[in-house]
Each structure stands twice: as structure tokens, then as C-alpha cells.
């Protein structure tokens, strides 16, 4: 594929373009965040065509409710990734989705994402392996359950058989590690 010219705006410009329903806002939003959002969505729904639908629904929802976003709520990505996560969770909990995968063998989904999605490694991401190593397994499992599996921290506590407090602490520690790593 010919590499398209990607549009990048500052966060302020992007937010105001979205709220004006300016075409450039839609393009910049897609170019800047689709891959990160898709990475989250595809890990939650575990199916590319469903993930594509959810990604589209996410953008539609962002586009139509951009007016309700304000910088007081935090940075834009925090807001949109939570929209994406909620739509993805709604999708895997919907009856249609569960029926669709009722008859599939579990094994079919092993390595599914890696086979079907080209993960792009940017130069600044060369340290992914290091990062994985800096996160202790118990920290990473908590973070990933919530971030990439759509669990609430209460559900993660049940899943891992840990008290809520421990989950919160481990989550905080994991993010502390990430911060250290990215700095």
C-alpha cells in the first residue's frame, strides 16, 4: 500500500476541529489514534472484522459526542480509549457476538492477533522487550487484564483471586514502572 500522508495536529487543534466537525479533524483523529485504539480493541474482541466494526463505531461516537469532551476530563486519548474500550466490551457481551463464536474451537484463536495484524514497531518502541522485562508478571497481568481485556478492577480481583487493594496497588506499581521506562 502506498503510504498515505498522515495528518497530525496538536491536541488543542484536533479537539477544536472535532468539535467544529471539520473534515481535517476526522482525518487527523484517525491518523493519530486509529492504530493505538485498534490495538486495544482487537485485543479485547479477538476478531479482526469485529474489531474493525468496533473501531468504526468508536470513531462515529467520538465524532458525534466531541462536544461533550473538555480538557478538564484529561487528555483526549484517555477519553477516546475509554470510549473504544466500552464499545468493545459491549460488543463481546452482546448476544450476537457470543453466538458467533459459540462453535469455534478455543485453539483457533491462539496467536490470532499476531497472525492477522501487522504490529508496527516504531523506532521509539524498540524497547518493548525491555519493557516487558521491567514489568513484573503479576503487574503486567493486572494491567493487561484491565487495559487489554476490558476487565474492571473488581473483575480482575476475582479472576486473579486477590483482594481489591492488592489489585489497585499492583496496577499503580505497573504504571509507575511504565512511567519510569518511558522517561
Amino acid at each position, binding site marked *: *500500500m502506498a503510504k*498515505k500522508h498522515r495528518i497530525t495536529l496538536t491536541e488543542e487543534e484536533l479537539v477544536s476541529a472535532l468539535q467544529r*466537525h471539520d*473534515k481535517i479533524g*476526522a*482525518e487527523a483523529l*484517525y491518523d493519530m489514534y*486509529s*492504530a*493505538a*485504539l*485498534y*490495538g*486495544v480493541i*482487537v*485485543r479485547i474482541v479477538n476478531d*479482526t472484522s469485529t*474489531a*474493525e*466494526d468496533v*473501531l*468504526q*463505531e468508536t*470513531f*462515529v*461516537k467520538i*465524532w*458525534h459526542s466531541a462536544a461533550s469532551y473538555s480538557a*478538564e*476530563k*484529561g*487528555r483526549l*486519548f*484517555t477519553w477516546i*480509549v*475509554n470510549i473504544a*474500550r*466500552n464499545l468493545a466490551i459491549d460488543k463481546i457481551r452482546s448476544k450476537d457476538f457470543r453466538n458467533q463464536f459459540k462453535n469455534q474451537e478455543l485453539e483457533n484463536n491462539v496467536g490470532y*492477533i499476531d497472525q492477522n*495484524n*501487522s*504490529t*508496527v514497531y516504531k523506532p521509539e*518502541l524498540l524497547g*518493548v522487550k525491555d*519493557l516487558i522485562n521491567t514489568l513484573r508478571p503479576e503487574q503486567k497481568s493486572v*494491567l493487561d487484564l*484491565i*487495559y*487489554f481485556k476490558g476487565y*474492571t*478492577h473488581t473483575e480482575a480481583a476475582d479472576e486473579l483471586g486477590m483482594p481489591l487493594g492488592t489489585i*489497585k*496497588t499492583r*496496577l*499503580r506499581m505497573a*504504571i509507575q514502572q*511504565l*512511567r519510569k521506562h*518511558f522517561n
Partner: protein
Amino acid sequence: MEETREYIESGILELYVLGDLSTEEKLQVQAMVQKHPLVKAELQEIEKAAYLYADLHQTEPSPVLRDRVLNSLLTNFADDRNLKTVTNRREEATVRKMNASSAAKPTVSVFYKYGFAASLLLLCASIAATAILYSRLRQSQQQLITLAQSNQKFANQVSFMQDEISVFRDPSFKLIQLKGTAKAPNSALTVAWSATRKKVMVDLKSVKLPETSKDQQYQLWAIVDQKPVDLGVFDGALTDTADMQLMKSVSTAQAFAVTIEPRGGSSNPTMEQMVVMASL
């Protein structure tokens, strides 16, 4: 200070960033962030880390998805803002092909919207114009019919008048003055008769006859071989087309006479109602 520190340590900011709080808790966090710069700085650090973590795991969606998503945002967004996303997606599927090469997708739909409005307006205007033109056409046709009728009337009148004039030019015509009888001594009437042409005409301008009632008419008779022959009836009043009236034809006559008869005429003259006569 201690309070904000504890707040930060509680891990609530992480849950906020991960969207794992109730609406009420979210509002509390936002209030704390606005109040305490330290909390704000901490939140921003967490957000940044969370973003970078997602970015690290970024997965490129299929390249064709970009157009699909952007079209669903930009096509008809003015109209479909309140529709469910499912509807949007279905519409997008049918609309995409048409818009694939178009650079200005939203203006296309706006163009059609205004185009539709404009054509409706145009339709109304042309219906109104047609109605007006139709009524004018009807008026014109009416006038044309009236004109044709009056034209016909004048043509008839002219040809009749030419007939009348020919009466005077034609030497075979004789003008016969009918004189009043004892019953109506002041009466008079002029009749033109051509024996060769077998034509008899009454000069209505010369009529000086006793008044008739509405159910009566004058009847002209020719006396042929001592017997009265009916030549038709006439009214004393002038008709608007001519001042001479053509009567039934007769080739020979010894006398002409007029009687007053019931409207429509009689087969035999009522002799006591004879008002004028002339013998030849």
C-alpha cells in the same frame, strides 16, 4: 499536602485513566484535579504512560478501513447525527462507491439537499405558471370565438346587404306598394318581387302596419288564380341583420296582401284581418 499524597497513592487516578470508575467518582477526581496542581501533574503522567503503553501495542487496522471510517463520519453527518451507528454503517456501505473519488463529500450531500429543495421550488413555480398560462389561453380562445362569431355575423350581413342592393340593380325586380285597406287605411308596405327569379322580399323599413300582439304575426299572401298562396310570416320589428326579409318564392301573382294571423301563420288567410294589399 498529606491529603493529596494519600489521594495519589490510593490508585484512584490510575482507575480514572483506565475508565474504571463510576460517573460520580469521575466527577470527584476531576474536581480534585482542578483543585490540586500536584494531583493534576500526577494524572497527566499516568495518562501519558497509559497512552504510550497503548501506542506500544498499536496495531494497524486494514488500510481500507480509513476510507470506510472517514466516509461514515463525513457522509451525511449533517442529517444523520442522531441516528444509530449501525444505520450509519449501512448507509456508508451503499454510499461509499459514489463518493470514493470525491474530495468534498459533505458538500455533495448538501448540494443534493439544496438541489432537491430548489427543484421542488421550481416545480411549484412552473405549476403556477402553467395554471396562469392556461387561464390566459382559455380567455384568448373565448375572445377568438367571440371575434369569429361577430366576424361571421358581419360577413352574413354584408352578403345579405349585397343581396338587397342587387334587388335594386336587378331590372326584373318590381317594387310593389301595398296600400292600407279600409280596416287600416294608414298602413303601407313595400314588397320587391322578381317573377323571373321567383323571389319575394319584404322591405321591413317600409313597414307601417297596425300593432300586433305577441302571439300574432304578419303573413304575406300572393293571390294566384284567385286563390291565396302563403308566402310566409314576418315580424314588423327590424331584425339586426337585415332590413329586407326574403319570403317564399312565387312566379306568378295577381295581387299581394298581408293579414294578421296567429304566430306561425295560418294555411288560409283571415280575410277580415287583411291590413294592406296591392293588385298588379
